[in-house]
Structure formats: structure tokens, C-alpha cells
């Protein structure tokens, strides 16, 4: 394993050939040994169908509401109704606790559940009831209601920059910095890292010098930061990368690629504190089950690969997943579901008190459903995130991160 010290020295040497050693690297080297906690947020854009992902198989109403769409209860289990009629091709589930089961396509996450590194929070969501992807994503990313703030919760959750702060402290694994990470603290979008490759080495060195010596203070600084980040990313990418522990990112699509790139940055001690990645394709208004299995395989495969690859480093890492809202409890006329309300969140990592389904289950009876049709929200998404921001990132108070939000008693997601 590449140690931090070796990387720092190695990079410094590699960069000596390209110009001066970045000042950040020099500063970072001096605080070597100080452990950084990392929070990774993963957004499932398009409103994931929580009820077919973390399946409430013990609930009689589940099967009644979804005669064509309900996923088979775990083998050896029957649903509460006593009926055990399984529709064709409706997949399998993995029993978690006798009440809930994971969709069978999430097999890669089973080991993490067993190791108690995976916690599930049921019936989570935001107070936003617009059922608009757009409005609800915006609410969830900004972390606040009504008039949107320009910045995102994960940016506000970071401490103000210090001398040892890396230019890569907050990275979005995509071409743009999403709302979640936007704000006052420096945040960089690391797409497929091609962006941070000027191609022409001559041009790069001329421009680096041009920006470093520029009398234009604003652009000079921006250019300097950009070249620092570029070198860091390039030098990290130069060495071949072998995921550890047999981690397989390969078959996991874009999210797999994003998380593999993130893994490289984390393992190279690039100074990551917060990261963001996303996966789309959850908006299943018709023909849901096969599509859902497909996207769930990518999703859980990528998460599992990252955890595997990180090995012992998982002790400093927490991943949290979210989607803007859930889907209707009842199936629609096209073997799909429409826009709903409550959904679920996954929390993964070494510090997580896993192997448990958290949150108050609101039930699926008509009077228990939100507006008579959707899973109700019993845990505000900000309660989950707030707990991680305090317990993992060490913030004292979530007030500035989630203005106007009153946190209730903690769920106890993290080991103390």
C-alpha cells in the first residue's frame, strides 16, 4: 500500500519535473499523520422506489398494494397475509430482520450488513411535498426549505479552510459541482479527470507560469489552485491503480467509475474531506422491476466495491445515500409507480452502528399513508445527515448547516 509519506515524496519528485512543488502539498506534508474524516454523499436522482428496495415483506398491505410489483418474500418466509403466491420474475429478497428485506439485486451489500457496517433508515425524506424532481432535489441538496440558498449542505458542513486544507478537500465526482457541494468552501468537480488534463504539456507549463506570475490577483490565484489540483490528480492517475480486496468496480457503470476515481484520491491522501457522487435512472413509471434490478446492481456493486477497496480506511469514512422522494405505495397501471413521498437512506462505513433498520415505520394502511397514497416521512433527511455531520465530521451544531431545522433525538447511527 502506498503510504502517505511515500506519496507525498513521490508526488513532490514527480512535480519537481513540472515546476515548483505545490504549496499545498508542502503544507499538507507538515501535518502528516493527522487523520481526516471523510463524508461521502451519494444521490439517487429520479426518486428511488424505497418499497421495492428495502422491502417491508412482513407487511400485508405491501402485497395488496402491489399485486404485480411486490417482490417475493425471502425464501422460507411467508408474507404476513399467509399467502405466498409469488409473481413470475419478481426476483428475490434478502431477509434483514424478519420485517424488512433487501432487494435481491443488492446482494453485494449483504456482507456489509453482516459486518454491521451498513445501517438502513426507513421512511426518510424531506418536508417538500411538491412531488417535483426538480424542487425536491433542490430542497435536499440545499438542505433547506422555501427560498433556496445558493449553497449546499455538504459545503456548509465543512469547517472553514486552514493551512493544511487541500485544494481537493471537497470533490464532486462529475463534470460539475452539484448544489450539495456548492458554496464558500473550495469545491472541485473531478469528472473523468480529463478536465484536469491540458493534453499539451508545453501549453500547461507556459500557462502555469503565466498564471503564477500574473498581476491579475484574482485569476492568478484561481489559476494557481487549478494547476495544483491538476498536478495532484495527474500524479495520482499516473501510477497504475489496483483496487484491493478483489473490489470490482468494473460492472458498476458510471457510479462505479466515479467511486473508483474517488478511491484513488482517498488512498493517495489527497486531503478529501467531503465527496459527492450520483446515479440516475430511478424514475420507473412503467415496467419497473427489471429496470430497478439493473440499476440496483450497479448501485450496490459500486458501494460494495468502494468499501472493499478502502479496507481499514473505512474506519474514517462514512457514506450516505439519498433520493429526492419515494414512489407511490400502490403500483400504477403500467407495472410501475408514480411520484410519492417517503423513501429510505443507507449509511455505510466503519464508524456506523450497522446491521439494523432505523426509523419509525409508519405503516401502509390508507390512513397511515401520506395524503392517502405515499409512504409517510417519519425521519427528516436532515436528522440523518445532521447526525453524521456532528458525529463524524465533528461539527458542534447543525444550525448553520440546516437553518430552521430542529433536530430530534439522535438515532444512534454511529458507534460512539
Amino acid at each position, binding site marked *: 500500500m502506498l503510504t502517505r509519506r511515500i506519496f507525498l515524496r513521490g508526488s513532490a519528485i514527480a512535480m519537481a519535473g513540472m515546476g515548483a512543488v505545490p504549496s499545498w502539498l508542502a503544507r499538507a506534508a507538515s501535518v502528516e499523520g493527522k487523520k481526516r474524516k471523510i463524508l461521502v454523499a451519494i444521490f439517487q436522482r429520479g426518486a428511488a422506489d424505497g418499497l421495492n428496495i428495502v422491502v417491508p415483506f412482513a407487511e400485508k398491505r405491501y402485497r395488496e398494494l402491489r399485486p404485480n410489483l411486490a417482490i417475493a418474500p425471502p425464501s422460507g418466509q411467508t408474507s404476513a397475509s399467509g399467502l405466498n403466491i409469488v409473481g413470475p420474475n419478481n426476483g428475490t429478497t434478502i431477509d434483514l430482520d424478519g420485517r424488512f428485506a433487501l432487494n435481491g439485486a443488492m446482494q453485494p451489500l449483504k456482507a456489509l450488513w453482516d459486518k454491521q457496517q451498513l445501517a438502513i433508515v426507513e421512511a426518510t425524506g424531506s418536508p417538500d411535498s*411538491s412531488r*417535483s*424532481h*426538480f*424542487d425536491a432535489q*433542490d430542497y435536499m441538496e440545499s438542505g*433547506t426549505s422555501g*427560498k*433556496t*440558498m*445558493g449553497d449546499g449542505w455538504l459545503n456548509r458542513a465543512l469547517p472553514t479552510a486552514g493551512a493544511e486544507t487541500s*485544494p481537493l478537500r471537497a470533490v464532486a465526482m462529475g*463534470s*460539475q*459541482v452539484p448544489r450539495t457541494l456548492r458554496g464558500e468552501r*473550495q469545491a*472541485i*468537480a473531478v469528472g473523468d479527470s480529463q*478536465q*484536469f488534463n*491540458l*493534453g*499539451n504539456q*508545453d*501549453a500547461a*507549463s*507556459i*500557462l502555469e*507560469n*503565466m*498564471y503564477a*506570475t*500574473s*498581476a*491579475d*490577483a*484574482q*485569476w*492568478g490565484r*484561481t*489559476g494557481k*489552485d*487549478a494547476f495544483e*489540483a*491538476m498536478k495532484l490528480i495527474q500524479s495520482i492517475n499516473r501510477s497504475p491503480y489496483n483496487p484491493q480486496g478483489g473490489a470490482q468496480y468494473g460492472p458498476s457503470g458510471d457510479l462505479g467509475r466515479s467511486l473508483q476515481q474517488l478511491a484513488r484520491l482517498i488512498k493517495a491522501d489527497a486531503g478529501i474531506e467531503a465527496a459527492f457522487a450520483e446515479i440516475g435512472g430511478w424514475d420507473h413509471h412503467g415496467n419497473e422491476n427489471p429496470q430497478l434490478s439493473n440499476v440496483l446492481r450497479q448501485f450496490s456493486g459500486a458501494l460494495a466495491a468502494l468499501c472493499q477497496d478502502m479496507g481499514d480506511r473505512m474506519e474514517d469514512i462514512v457514506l450516505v445515500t439519498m433520493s429526492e422522494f419515494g414512489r407511490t405505495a400502490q403500483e400504477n397501471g403500467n407495472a410501475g409507480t408514480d411520484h410519492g413521498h417517503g423513501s429510505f437512506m443507507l449509511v455505510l462505513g466503519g464508524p456506523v452502528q450497522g446491521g439494523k433498520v432505523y426509523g419509525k415505520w409508519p405503516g401502509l394502511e390508507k390512513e397511515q399513508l401520506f*395524503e392517502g397514497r405515499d409512504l409517510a416521512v417519519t425521519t427528516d433527511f436532515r436528522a440523518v445527515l445532521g447526525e453524521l455531520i456532528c458525529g463524524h465530521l465533528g461539527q458542534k451544531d447543525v444550525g448553520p448547516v440546516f*437553518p*430552521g431545522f430542529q433536530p430530534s433525538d439522535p438515532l444512534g447511527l454511529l458507534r460512539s
Partner: protein
Amino acid sequence: MKRFLLLMAAAAMAATCLSFLANAEGRFDKKLSPDQQILQALNRLTFGPRPGDIEQVRHVGVQKWIELQLHPDQIPENPELDARLKPLATLRMDLAAIVKEYTPEPLQPIVLPAMTLNQLLPPEDMRKVQIGTAEERTAVLKSLDPDKRRQVLAALPPNVLAHTPEFQKEGEDARKLQQEEMQKENRRRNPQLNDLLNPDQVNVARSGNKEQLTALFAYLDPEKRPLVAGLLPPQSLAVLPELRRAGMFRRTPRLVASDDLKQAKVFRALYSNRQLEEVLVDFWFNHFNVDQAKNVPQTQNLEHLLIGSYERDAIRPHVLGHFKDLLLATARHPAMLYYLDNWESMAPGGFEVGPFAPNRGVVNGVPNSIIPSPLARQAHGLNENYGREVMELHTLGVKGGYTQDDVIAVARCFTGWTVRDPANPEFVFASFMHDFGEKTVLGHKIAAGGGEQDGLQVIDILGHHPSTAKFISRELAQRFVADDPPQALVDRMARTFTKTDGDLRAVLETMFTSPEFFSEGAWQAKVKSPFEMVVSAVRAIGGEASDTYALVQKIADLGEPLYNKLEPTGYPNTGDAWLSTTGIMGRMNFSTALASGLVAGVKLDSTRLEGNDAPAIARDLLGRDASPQTQAALEKGLEGTDHTAPFIASLVLSSPDFQRR
């Protein structure tokens, strides 16, 4: 909270800018040289100088040229622009026609000739088959000829045959056959690439170059062309604009309208002779921002259809007219009524008669059918969104002296200003939604019983408010002079605004003839936005654009997706927002692609800069000498090497110097 944050941000900015301001303040009275004045005028009134522009302005004279730009109707438009806008048909259609032609056909369910049981069998037989004994069912089924039996079996629910094993297999086969026919019909309606093309053709369609694609489409039957185009991702047709448009029309017709507008915006910025007008349209659209992605209930992508008309009919006619006309036109346009939710704002307690009422009808002569499905949304009452933003963002400014009570009063005045129907999006005053009570807006009493007039009175009050004169003047000065423009200039502009009843041309004249506009404090003081950077680069290098698809993409990649700013604040007017590490890398990569001729749709005259040295190329592209530091960096970097003109050009376009105007 928002206001608090803005204050915090302002305070933070003031703190960081303080040292800079201390120097800059004094320099607003230091005059630019005549050459600098020419470039200053071009950098601020246009999207950047093209080859030859400096000489032209010098020839006409700066003041006279500015005067001309202030009267665009006296400038003959560039025929090249008209030719390029021609294929973008929605630009010239009225809104009703756009809605009609660019709304997707509703999906028709697949109905097979298969008949229902009561069409196939006499009542007695039908009873026997459905709920009779197994023997009765068997007897009837056996009596039918095979064709008819197949139809009957396909129409029967499977559980009916559970106790008639002899026909179970035949029933399954019949249903399967029917299923297959449905799929076949579906496939016929929605053919896939493999149905339309042979394997070689599919390869060409997916990854062919321009010549191969052109040949393939020329070879296809005309009616097949849009089908094939619709199945290809837009980037496959990046080089064939008309087919790309046809394909998009087949997939998502409404998106064609917003796409036309984006293409046109870049074409106009590149080619229009009436540059100031285009700069102003950009400024005022952004000031009265609406977002193409605004969600209108049950009408997907509707805002995409509306924004072109919004720019053309509400913004463009007034950019050199009177401010209150601009304000009124935006207030009444469906794009704004949807965007800031005023369309559904209504008198509290108006549930019984409003558009959300369970029973439809005609109230006060206006059909009560504004909302397609009244029960689809639960409502309703006052919506403060527009009432707040019209003061905070459009007129008075956040510190313009209004209170929460004013927000509510303004919102009440605008109740009933709504849209007739998503299928017929035009302004209508719906009196049944209106709050007829008395209101007080910024100290002005608005008498009870007013109606539509209440909103007009608010427009009048806001349009003439001293805070509006100051706020609008400051916004304009921020765009055209400096991020933190001198107060004395803003005050003079505000005086002109007040004196002329908000004549925007007069306000601009005050600014463009001011010493501050031509001062060192304003020189290179503005950071280019991504849109400004991209179009100014194409203009500077003398690129000829036949298609702006790639440029529109690039502008979005650099962080300014056109017509797609979610927040009503619009894109930032000041530089700090655009100074980002990702942004500068993206700008460098774009500059390299552009100078090397690798941006699709943009052609360069490769001979133009050939044989020039770096200082000459910098002078050509910047319209002035590069800064001494940039010159030194170029000289040092290029020393002893043999670099080509495009390489040097890419460095100049990537330089800090080119990121300012």
C-alpha cells in the same frame, strides 16, 4: 435568512475587496487613452471585438458609434445572421402556433382488432364460458371454429380455464399470440434502429463522420429520416443540425423550442450588427430570469415552449424603452406567471369559486378551468413568490424599503393575474381568483373593488419608486462599468431614470457618456461569464459558425447553461462567481479546442494569423498588448521553440488577460 446571508456575503466581499477599492476609487477619474476608449466601448457594448471592429469604430468615432448602437433600428442587420436563424423555425412563430406544433401527440393505447367476449359470443354462451360449469364451458368452446375459439380464449382471464385443463394450453397459446401481436404493433409504431437500417447502416448512424451520415440519410426514404434521427443521441448528429433538430422533434418536441432559442442566442451574439441590443437582451432576460426547467403541473416541459416568446415578446421590444413597460410585459407573460407561481395565487378562502373548486363552470364570465385537474393539487390561497421577487429582484432591490406586509399586499394585488390554460398559455385576469379587499402598498392605498387594475397600480408604484431608479441604475453600471461601480455615476443614472420616467436609453446614454465609463477604474474590470468568454473567443479569432450546438454545450459545461438558471436571481453579474478552478481549466481546454479548429460547427481561417509572432497574435486577439507579465510568460515559454500560430492563439485565449473585458 436569505437577506441575512446576502448581507453576510456583501460584508465578506467588502472586506476582501477593500484594498482593491482603495486604489480603484481614485482611478475612476483617470481617463483612458483614445485607443483604450475604442476597445472599452467594444468590450462593453458588444460580445467582444472581431477582426476589423477596432478600425471601424475608430473610423466612425466612438461617440457616434455608441449613439448608433443605442438606435439599433438604424443599423442594417447582418444578412449572414438571418441565414443562420432561418432553420430555427420557432423564432418566427407566434406562441399559439408554437404550442400547437411543438406539443407531443398524446400516446394512443394499442388496441388490437381483438374483440371482447360480448362481441364474440351470444349472451347465453358468454355466461357459460365465464361462470358456467367446466362441462358447459367445454361444450361451448368445442362448438367454436378454431379461429373464433382462439379469440375467445385470448379474451378470457387465465383463472377461468383453471378447471378446464383441456383448453389451458390452447388458452396460453392464444394469449401469447395476442401478446406477440401487441408487441409487434408496438414495434411497428416505435421502430428501433435495427428495424430501419441494416447492420452496416446502424454503424454509420451511430459513429459515422459528416460525409458518411449525409450519404446515409440521403439514401433513406424521406419518411424514415426523422425516425432514424430520433433514435440517435444528439451528439451523433452534432454535425448535422437539421437532422439533429428533426430527431429532437420526434423525441421531445417541446425541447426543440428552447433549443432553437439557445442556438439563436449564440448566433446573434456572434453575428448581429446590433450588438448592444443583444447585450441588453441578455442582461434583461437575466434580470427578469425564468428557467426553462420550471415544472408546470401535468404539463411536462411547458416552460421550454414559453421562454422564446418571453424573450422575443416581453423582453426584446423594451430593452431601450421605458422600464415600466418591460416590468409589465414580464409580469403578464405566462413564462413568468408560471415561473414565480403567480398563476395559482388566489384570494385566501377562494376555494369554492377558484380554479381549485371541485365544480367547474363560468364565474364572472371567465371559464373556471385554468387548472386541468382541479383535484390533482390541493390548494389554496395566496402565493407570495412573485410578490416578493418583483420587489426584491426586479425593482426595489433587497434594501429598497419594503416590508413583509408589502410583500403580502403586492401578492394580493396580483391575485387573478394568471394563465388561461397550459394548452392555451395566454395572460388572463381571472376575477374569481382576485382579492378585492383594500391594500396598502409601500404607503399607497389601493381601494377595495379594483380587480386587474390593482396589479397595474403596483407596476406603476414600483416602476416610479426612487429605490427602483437606484437599483436598476446600479445593476446596469455593474454590468457595463465595474462590479462595484462608483456611487456618483449610479446617482446620476438614477436621476436620469427619474427625470425621464424610466427611459432606459437615456439611462444608458448617461452611463456611456460618463467619464467613469472611460476611466481606468473600469478598464478590464469585468470578468467574462462563460457565455461572454466563449462567444468573445469565437469573435476574436474570426471563427465562422454554421452551427452553435457545440458552443451551447461548452457554455453549459463552463457553468452557465443558457435559459436554465433555477433561481430567480439569474446568473451573477459580478466576477467572483466565475473565478473557479474548474472554470479556468475548462476555459483553457475550450481555447485549445477552438484555436485548433476542433469545435464542431466553427470554421477558422487558418491563414489569418500565420507567420505572426506571439506579441502580434496577442494584440490581434485582445485588441491591445497583453499585460507585461503575460507577454513575459509567452516569451519565456516559447523561447527557442517553433510553435504554430494556433498554439500561440490558444495560449492567448487561455490567458488571464482574455478572461476579462
